[in-house]
């Protein structure tokens, strides 16, 4: 992974001291509340329902064991012994003290971490595929490009006061595990007719109040033009995006208002001016950054572990279930990518304790070249585990309550913290997640349902991406009571689509029962091997509506 040089380190150290001084001046009454709000948000600090919340950046979801141990330590020292992973692959502390945040940032800087631009109306953390670099059909590892984007976005002097927040996702091949089509900019590595590798560029996707699938603005962008083109898009947005209404300020609204063709014309006009400036990437820089993402020293005898593994799979059904649901193919024979489930029974999705963080760091050192990835669906990944190590790793993870074999199943939900923590939320989410977990605890039933994506947001801001879930749940407030609106048919993958509302919102107590009815319709209608989303697309919403809203006799 990328290692800071002296300049990178100096930058984050200076940023810590800058923020320390801003905090001091705020506490001394020298900065008005509203202005400090902008400053603290740009450094990841929200004031929440019960306490501040600090969002720490995990650039493109990649960490090393030293960083994860530091996170564990920080949760012990400054928080309540746990942290929460988010859909931007970042990590949140729910109980830091505002006065102590500069000290937390100083500790993070020791391990090359920070909270720069994890909130606010600025360029946010860039995300990517959590299987980047290990997928066989990947065109190229997207992470070096994410790192170049990270550097360009970090403390960008011109784009710190955008109309609204701005999120970029990059994928390395045809599969999309980064929800790239619902980002302000989605970048897909592609190969053109001449065999050159570059980017397909999408713009104007997003969720929130106005969910939109991104539109193609450029079918092929040469690699060296990546940053000049991004800068052209950002400049057009910064100058033309609406600033009179924060609900209409995202780039998707501008793209829709101008139309993609006019928007493209404006970007191209700006790009013409800056395309051949100093911002054009150099071969040396590209090669240097790629050097940080060279393959790990994989063991040539790892394939020998496969026969051992096969016996272990034969002997232990529980291990086999975990292997089938929670591991994925790796392009190097003898290795697997492992998803560590942060969706245990009856615990908030995405939460992890200090003890678990420390243990994960140790396991990463032993089995995964010291690397840990966070995923946009709030799990962790060990991307390079030798076949012969899987059983031992599984046993350790099971002891840590991190081996629930539910990846890709109904209980592998994306859930925002909801009303329990978030001051924006209209409704609770964590209790409903528990209700769903209690109802659908039977793994054989879940495996029978198969691949399905359920996401739940506690308000229209859609932090949990409910619009692009196969089953989306949106919490709404009706006269002081929590109700839940259900959408079906969304997808954040390469076949991205927005879910459609099936009818009026259901009361809190009926959410799990409603999902059960939906699943019954699926089971009754599916043809062989048809996934839930495919059945919904084939038969439409009507059969689901009929079942869910059938008059009670």
């Amino acid at each position: 992974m990328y290692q800071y040089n002296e300049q990178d380190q100096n930058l984050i150290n200076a940023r810590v001291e800058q923020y320390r001084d801003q905090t001091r001046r705020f506490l001394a009454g020298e900065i008005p509340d509203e202005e400090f709000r902008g400053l603290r948000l740009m450094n990841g600090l929200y004031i929440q329902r019960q306490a501040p919340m600090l969002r720490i950046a995990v650039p493109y979801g990649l960490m090393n064991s030293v960083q994860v141990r530091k996170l564990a330590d920080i949760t012990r020292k400054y928080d309540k012994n746990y942290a929460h992973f988010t859909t931007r692959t970042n990590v949140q502390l729910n109980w830091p003290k505002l006065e102590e945040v500069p000290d937390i940032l100083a500790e993070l800087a020791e391990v090359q971490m920070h909270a720069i631009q994890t909130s606010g109306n600025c360029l946010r953390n860039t995300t990517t595929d959590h299987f980047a670099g290990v997928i066989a059909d990947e065109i190229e590892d997207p992470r070096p490009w994410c790192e170049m984007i990270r550097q360009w976005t970090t403390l960008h002097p011109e784009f710190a006061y955008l109309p609204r927040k701005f999120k970029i996702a990059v994928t390395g091949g045809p599969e999309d595990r980064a929800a790239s089509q619902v980002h302000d900019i989605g970048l897909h590595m592609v190969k053109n007719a001449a065999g050159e590798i570059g980017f397909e560029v999408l713009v104007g996707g997003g969720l929130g109040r106005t969910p939109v699938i991104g539109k193609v603005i450029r079918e092929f962008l040469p690699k060296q033009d990546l940053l000049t083109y991004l800068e052209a898009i950002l400049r057009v947005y910064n100058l033309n995006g609406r600033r009179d209404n924060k609900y209409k300020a995202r780039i998707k609204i501008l793209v829709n208002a101008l139309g993609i063709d006019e928007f493209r014309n404006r970007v191209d006009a700006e790009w013409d001016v800056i395309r051949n400036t100093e911002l054009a990437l150099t071969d040396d820089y590209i090669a240097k950054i790629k050097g940080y993402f060279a393959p790990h020293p994989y063991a040539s005898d790892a394939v020998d572990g496969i026969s051992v593994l096969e016996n272990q799979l034969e002997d232990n059904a529980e291990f086999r279930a975990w292997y089938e649901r929670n591991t994925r193919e790796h392009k190097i024979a003898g290795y697997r990518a492992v998803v560590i489930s942060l969706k245990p029974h009856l615990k908030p999705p995405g939460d992890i304790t200090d003890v678990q963080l420390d243990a994960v760091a140790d396991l990463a050192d032993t089995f995964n070249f010291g690397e840990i990835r966070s995923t946009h669906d709030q799990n962790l990944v060990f991307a390079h585990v030798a076949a012969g190590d899987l059983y031992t790793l599984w046993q350790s993870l099971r002891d840590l309550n991190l081996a629930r074999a539910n990846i890709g199943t109904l209980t592998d939900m994306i859930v925002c913290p909801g009303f329990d923590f978030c001051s924006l939320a209209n409704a609770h989410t964590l209790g409903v997640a528990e209700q769903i977990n209690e109802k659908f605890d039977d793994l054989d039933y879940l495996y029978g349902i198969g691949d399905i994506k359920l996401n739940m947001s506690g308000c229209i801001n859609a932090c949990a991406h409910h619009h692009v879930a196969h089953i989306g749940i949106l919490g709404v407030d009706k006269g002081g009571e929590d109700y839940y609106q259900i959408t079906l048919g969304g997808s954040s993958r390469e076949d991205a689509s927005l879910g459609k509302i099936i009818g009026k919102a259901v009361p809190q107590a009926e959410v799990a029962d409603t999902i059960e009815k939906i699943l019954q319709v699926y089971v009754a209608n599916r043809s062989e091997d048809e996934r839930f989303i495919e059945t919904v697309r084939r038969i439409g919403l009507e059969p689901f509506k009929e079942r869910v809203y059938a008059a009670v006799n």
Partner: protein
Amino acid sequence: MPLLINRVVADDSWLLVDEDNLSAHIDEDIVVPYELFSAHTDSLINAAGKLGVRINGDQDLNLILQHLDKVSLVAIEFPAFTDGRGFSFARILRRSGFSGQIRAEGDVTRDRLEYMERCGFDAFAIPADRYSDDIVSAFGEVPVHYQGSADDERPIFRQN
């Protein structure tokens, strides 16, 4: 209202005029609102004094860009500190070759000064109640720049 020019407190040698007193001062060094510049472009660029134009994010920078060699000062208004359009205005002016003064006006306070300077501002009109003598320490708080800026166009990978 204290004025910083190139990080030093300076007197303001420019006169802001409006529709009513424009004709009385047309041959002096004046700053005119964008609307006046738009309405009297020809007479203003041919006047004897130096010309400054005050613009905000809702107005069309292109009109100034078309007459850049006749303009000596551009004052960019920040109606709120959250309005980031002025940063792009300054960047575009500098890359278009403008070497006159670019002055930040309005909600201009300490924690934006460093980014403003990097985008090309060299003058800052700071509200008196937000001014303090140590305000210049805001410049250079973060000494490492990944991006090019108005005074050094090289991004990090072309520095050194």
